[in-house]
C-alpha cells in the first residue's frame, strides 16, 4: 500500500463540534488495551437505543460502509482527550478525516497514530459536502500526503501539515524512540532544574508522604 496516498469513498458527517464523547462513548473505554474499539465508533449515531442500525446514518448505507475517509463538520474531535477515538476510527477503517478544523488534543493523538487529518478551507469543505449530498454515487477523494493536496470533483486544494507530522506519517517515525536519544539532555536539564527550583521537585511523592503521615480522623 502506498503510504502517502489515501484514496476512496468519503462519507459525509457534517455535524459541527462532533466531540470525542460522540466519536466513542464512555461504555467503550473500559479496557486496558486498544482492542475492540471499532464497535463503539459513533455508536449513538449508528445504532438506536435498542442496538439496531439507524438507517439515517450514512455509515450504515452499504455504499459508505467501507469509506476510508470522513468529511467532518467544524471543530471535529473537540472535547475529551481520549485517544480511543483515534484508535477506534482506525479500527473502523477510517484513514483520513477532512474538516475545517479539529480539536487540539484529538489532532495530536491522530498524528501520533498515523490517522491523517486534513484541515480544509471552509468553502472547499462546503462544496465537498454539497457534492457528497447531491451525487447519486458516493463521492471519492484523494488525499496526497506527499504533495499535501486533496483531489476530488470539487477540484484540487492544498492542506497544511507540519513537516514533522508529514514525516511521521510517511516514515512512521517512532516519537518515543527519537526522544530517548535526548535522555542525557533531559537528565542534565532535570538536575539543573531541581538545583535551581527545589520547591518544584517531586511534588507528587512529597504530597503522598505528607498525607500518609497524617493521623486517621
Amino acid at each position, binding site marked *: 500500500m502506498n503510504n502517502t496516498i489515501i484514496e476512496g469513498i468519503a462519507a459525509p458527517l457534517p*455535524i*459541527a*463540534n462532533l466531540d470525542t*464523547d*460522540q466519536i466513542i*462513548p*464512555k*461504555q467503550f473505554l*473500559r*479496557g*486496558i*488495551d486498544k482492542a475492540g474499539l471499532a464497535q463503539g465508533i459513533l455508536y*449513538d449515531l449508528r445504532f438506536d*437505543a435498542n442496538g439496531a442500525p439507524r438507517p439515517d446514518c450514512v455509515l450504515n448505507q452499504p455504499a459508505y460502509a467501507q469509506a476510508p475517509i470522513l468529511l467532518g*463538520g467544524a*471543530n471535529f474531535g*473537540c*472535547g*475529551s*482527550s*481520549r*485517544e480511543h477515538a*483515534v484508535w477506534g476510527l482506525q479500527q473502523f477503517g477510517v484513514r483520513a478525516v477532512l474538516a475545517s*478544523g479539529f*480539536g*487540539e*488534543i484529538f489532532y*495530536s*493523538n491522530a498524528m*501520533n*497514530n498515523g490517522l491523517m487529518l486534513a484541515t480544509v478551507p471552509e468553502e472547499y469543505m462546503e462544496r465537498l459536502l454539497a457534492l457528497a449530498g447531491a451525487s447519486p454515487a458516493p463521492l471519492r477523494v484523494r488525499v496526497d500526503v506527499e504533495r499535501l493536496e486533496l483531489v476530488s470533483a470539487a477540484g484540487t486544494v492544498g492542506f497544511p501539515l*507540519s*513537516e*514533522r507530522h508529514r514525516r511521521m506519517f510517511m516514515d512512521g517515525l517512532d*516519537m*518515543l524512540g527519537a*526522544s*530517548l536519544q*535526548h*535522555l542525557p*539532555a*533531559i537528565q542534565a*536539564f*532535570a538536575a539543573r*532544574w531541581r538545583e535551581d*527550583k*527545589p*520547591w*518544584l*521537585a*517531586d*511534588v*507528587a*511523592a*512529597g*504530597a*503522598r508522604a*505528607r*498525607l500518609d503521615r497524617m493521623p486517621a*480522623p
Partner: protein
Amino acid sequence: MSKTLYRKLVDAHTVVRLDVDNVLLYADLHLMNEYTSPQAFAGLHERGLATLYPGQNVATVSHIIPTHADKLRIIADGDSALQASNLKRNCGRHGIPLFDTNDRFQGIEHVIAPEHGMIRPGMVVICGDSHTTTYGALGALGFGIGTTEVEHLLATQTLVYRLAGDMRIRIDGRLPFGTTAKDLVLMVIARIGAQGARGYVVEFCGSAIDALTVEARFTLCNMAVEAGARGALIAPDATAIGYVLEHCPDIAGDAAMRARALAHWATLASDPDAVFDVEHAFDAAALAPIVTWGTSPDQAMPVTGQVPQARNASDTRALAYAGLASGMPIAGVAIDHVFIGSCTNGRIEDLRAVMDVVGSRKVAPGVRAMVVPGSGAVREQAEREGIAARLVAAGFEWRKPGCSMCLAMNDDVLAPGVRCASTTNRNFEGRQGRGAITHLMSPAMAAAAAVTGKITDVRTLLEQQA
C-alpha cells in the same frame, strides 16, 4: 525581548528545540487516571522501559469509581474493576504515588492535585485529561494529552510539544450579585465560540479576574478548553500565592526556600509590552446567571432570556435534541435531575454556594438531586462545616468523590429524556447518558433548580433570603 507569561513558561521548560513548531517540554508533574493510562504502561512494558522520575507522577482512580456512600467502595463492573486494579499494579511496579479507590484522599485529579499542594506557580503540569487547563489558576501551564503522550511522559518526563499562539482575554468590572466564575466562563465561551480559542493559550486578566478566589479561577481555567484553548493562565498574584503557601507546608515552613520561590513567582507575568496574537475584552458588570440550552458549551444564554432562533444546522439539531423551542423562556423549563460536582465545580466553595441557596428549602418533589464532592478532603470539610447534614436534610444525595455523572463513565448514568441541571463542563449529546439533556450552570443555579424543580434565576431566591 518582551514575552508573554506563556512563552516564559515554555522557554523555561524547553529541554531541546526540535524544530520551528515543536520543543521537548519538561513536565514538573504528570497526573494519571485509570482509563487513559493503561495502554501507556503496556507500551512501556513492551519496550522494557521504566518511569524516569516516579516522584513527579501521580495517579488517581476517578472516572470509573462508584459514588454510593457505602463504607467500602466496590467497583461492580468487571472491566472497570480491572482498570482500577491494573492502575494499582502499574503504580506499584513503577513506584508512582497513587490515590486508590478506598483512599481517604481519593478524588478527581484536578481537585486533589492543588488541594494537596502539588500545583505551584511556574510549573508545567500534564495529564491525559482535557481539563488539565485548570492549573492556570495558579500560574502553572496545564494541558491535556493522549495516551501515546502519557507513555512518552512516563519514559522521559517530557513531551514533544507543539507551540500554541498567545491570546489574552481581559475581563473588567465587578461580578454582579448572583453570578460566579461559572457564569463568566460560560459567557466567554458563548461569545468566542467552542473553537474561539483553538490553537491558543489564553491568559485571563482584568479587575474581574483579580477579584476571583483561587477556586473560582480553577472553574474559569478549567472550562477554557471548552472554547478550544490549549491552556489557560492567570499571572500569580497575592491571592494565588496565599493559596499555594497555605497548601504547601514544605515551602511555607522553610524560610530560605520560601524566599527563593517568592522571588521566582514575582517574575511570572507577561511583560508590559508583550504582544498577543489575539485579544478580547469583556465587561463582567453586565453578566447575568448563564445556562446552556444546547449540546455545545457555547450554546449558552442568560437565564432571563428566550431560547434563541437556530442560526445554523447545528443549532437546529441541538434544539431538537434538547426538546426546546425557539422563543420560549429558558427559566421555568422543568428539570428531573440535579448534579452537583466535577472538576469544574466540585470544591468546597461550590458546596457552600449550594448550601447558601438551599437554606431551609427542600429538593422539589420528583427531582433527584445528587452532590458528588470532588475529593475525600472536600467531602470531609463539607461534613465538618455542616453542609452535608443540611443538604441531606433538604433531600440531596450526599455521595462519595469521583467524576461521576460529569461523563457518566461509572454507574451514575441518566436515562434517555431525563433533563439535568448540572454544574459540569460539557453538555454534549449523550454525555450524561444516551438521550439525556444537560443544562450547564453554576452551583448556585443548580441549587435553585433543585429546590424549584425548574430552571430558575437564582437571584430571585437569594433576594427572598436577603
